[in-house]
């Protein structure tokens, strides 16, 4: 078990290094001239030669690329995420202020996705090809197609239109103001949660259908165990393993989805910060946020892998 965790972590470290190189290539080398990325093609042509040289020196862009890369890695290792080009707040402060909100949304959305997806999967799998099953499958196919941020906009609009209600626009901590915090978080969490629930219901259904046909389930039935107990005790735990893995993959959907969804709800979280960074063409903030999102995604998937290995001895002993 420990060697498995160690191996997984080593691979994870390698991946994070690869990710950092890739982020650097995308954000610093791809645009050709970073000043073009900052000022836009039009703004760039308005700068004089001298201004360009000044900006390059000021931003440390005049050094060779590998020196820039190492400087960036060193900064991150020190926990210094740099500073926005346009705002006074440092990125580290911004993270401290905004990240908890997005983390709450992500966690709550996962809980919602399981709470909705698993019961739907069980109903579908126990009575396949009935009206309930078909309805559930159609709704999940529908939810796979609907963009989450659009649902978010409709929810905001509907609440405003019929109830004159709008979630608060300023941030609120979980402990300082729990109710306002809940109002902020619940909308995005429901939208992102239902999006995941569609995948979980599909995967859970097919996984359960497979497990129900196994010999040990028939044995449990044959020894006279109550039908519901067979499902709950024997079938479900095994059927859920692939769903847990899927849940890890879906974290990508949550992390990425949080950006447009937070914009739709005007939630002051990290996703909204990324939207601001993109629209202000703030490549330094963007570089760090993209790296952070990818690293969190990698770490979460390692966590899931370890959890699966803990739950499933077949993987642990391999």
């Amino acid at each position: 078990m420990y060697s498995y965790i160690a191996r997984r972590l080593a691979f994870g470290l390698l991946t994070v290094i690869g990710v950092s190189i890739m982020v650097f290539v995308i954000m610093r080398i791809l645009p050709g001239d970073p000043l073009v990325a900052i000022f836009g093609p039009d703004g760039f042509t308005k700068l004089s030669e001298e201004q360009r040289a000044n900006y390059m020196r000021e931003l440390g862009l005049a050094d060779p690329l590998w020196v820039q890369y190492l400087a960036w890695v060193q900064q991150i290792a020190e926990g210094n995420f740099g500073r926005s080009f346009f705002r006074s707040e440092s990125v580290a402060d911004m993270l401290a202020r905004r990240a908890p909100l997005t983390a709450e949304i992500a966690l709550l959305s996962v809980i919602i996705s399981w709470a909705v997806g698993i019961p739907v999967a069980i109903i579908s799998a126990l009575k396949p090809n009935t009206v309930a099953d078909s309805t559930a499958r159609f709704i999940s196919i529908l939810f796979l197609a609907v963009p989450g941020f659009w649902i978010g906009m409709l929810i905001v609009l509907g609440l405003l239109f019929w109830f004159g209600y709008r979630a608060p626009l300023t941030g609120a901590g979980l402990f300082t103001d729990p109710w306002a915090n809940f109002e902020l978080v619940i909308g995005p969490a429901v939208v992102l949660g239902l999006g995941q629930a569609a995948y979980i219901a599909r995967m859970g259904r097919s996984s359960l259908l497979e497990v129900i046909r196994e010999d040990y389930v028939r044995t449990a039935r044959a020894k006279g165990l109550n039908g519901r107990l067979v499902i709950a005790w024997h079938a479900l735990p095994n059927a859920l393993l692939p769903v847990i893995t899927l849940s890890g993959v879906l974290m990508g959907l949550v992390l990425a989805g949080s950006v447009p969804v937070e914009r739709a709800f005007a939630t002051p979280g990290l996703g909204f910060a990324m939207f601001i960074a993109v629209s202000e063409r703030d490549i330094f903030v963007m570089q760090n946020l993209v790296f952070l999102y990818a690293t969190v995604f990698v770490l979460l998937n390692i966590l899931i892998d370890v959890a699966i290995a803990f739950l499933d001895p077949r993987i642990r002993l391999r």
Partner: protein
Amino acid sequence: MSTTVAPSLPAPPSRLRNAWRGLGYFFRRAPLSAFWGVIAALIVAMAVAAPVVAPYPPLKSDFRAMQKPPSEKHWFGTDQIGRDTLSRVIYGSQTSLTVAFGAVLFGTTLGALWGLACGYFGGRFDMASQRIIEFLQSFPDLILAMAIAMALGGGLATVIVAIAITRIPFGGRVIRSVVLSLKEMQYVEAARGIGASHTRMMFRHILPQCVAPFMILATTHLGVAIVIEASLGFLGVGIPPPTPTWGNMLSDALNAGLVPPWWLVLFPGLAITLTVLAFNLLGDGIRDLLDPRLRGSV
């Protein structure tokens, strides 16, 4: 002296007739998916025929009808500067579909060819490729597309490239695993036995077997690409305004003020949903037809 008439063989069925027969088979076997396939075809037709179908030019402002709800004159209402929403939704399908088909054509195809090479050659090339694919997959796909689109600056070509790059790893993974199992087939071994070159083996014997999984992957990716394109537009890193795209329209609606008019929010989103739904269900149908083992596992 008698002329011997060669026994006449039935003429081989023409390719066109084969295609028609295949289509008929599709309609009989999966009527629901075929129905959604027709919807998808209609959406494509609408995009191509946009100048004919759209009641107004998409950029023309009618200053006597600004931000008006749906009426007889403007079925989907008008936006803040009096542009007809219906026309803009119709023209939006052009951008959406161009980006989606472009991204799948480049991304999924490139990934598939890469996967073919990885699976066929194996060894160090495969190992290195798998690492790179893993790095690419470590990014949530919208985030990667955002970063690339931002770095390259807005525009149709950059959005296609940005989305295409996010599609590469999936094409690579899926086709690689298909090729790995095909390589062990006897007919491939036989081809190797009679001394076929690498290119001939790859393109003549292995590639045709990859078409079915590729088709399944490609139709699914069309839907994904449309959602990513809309999200990029919504976040302001897509194709810059005033080009009407569904994402841009939703973004404009939010910028309209604290309370966005409902018709500006509803219709572009419905267009996205309907298009993605059509492609997804068409893809499901194609998968059921081409790969019966997967049937019912949806």
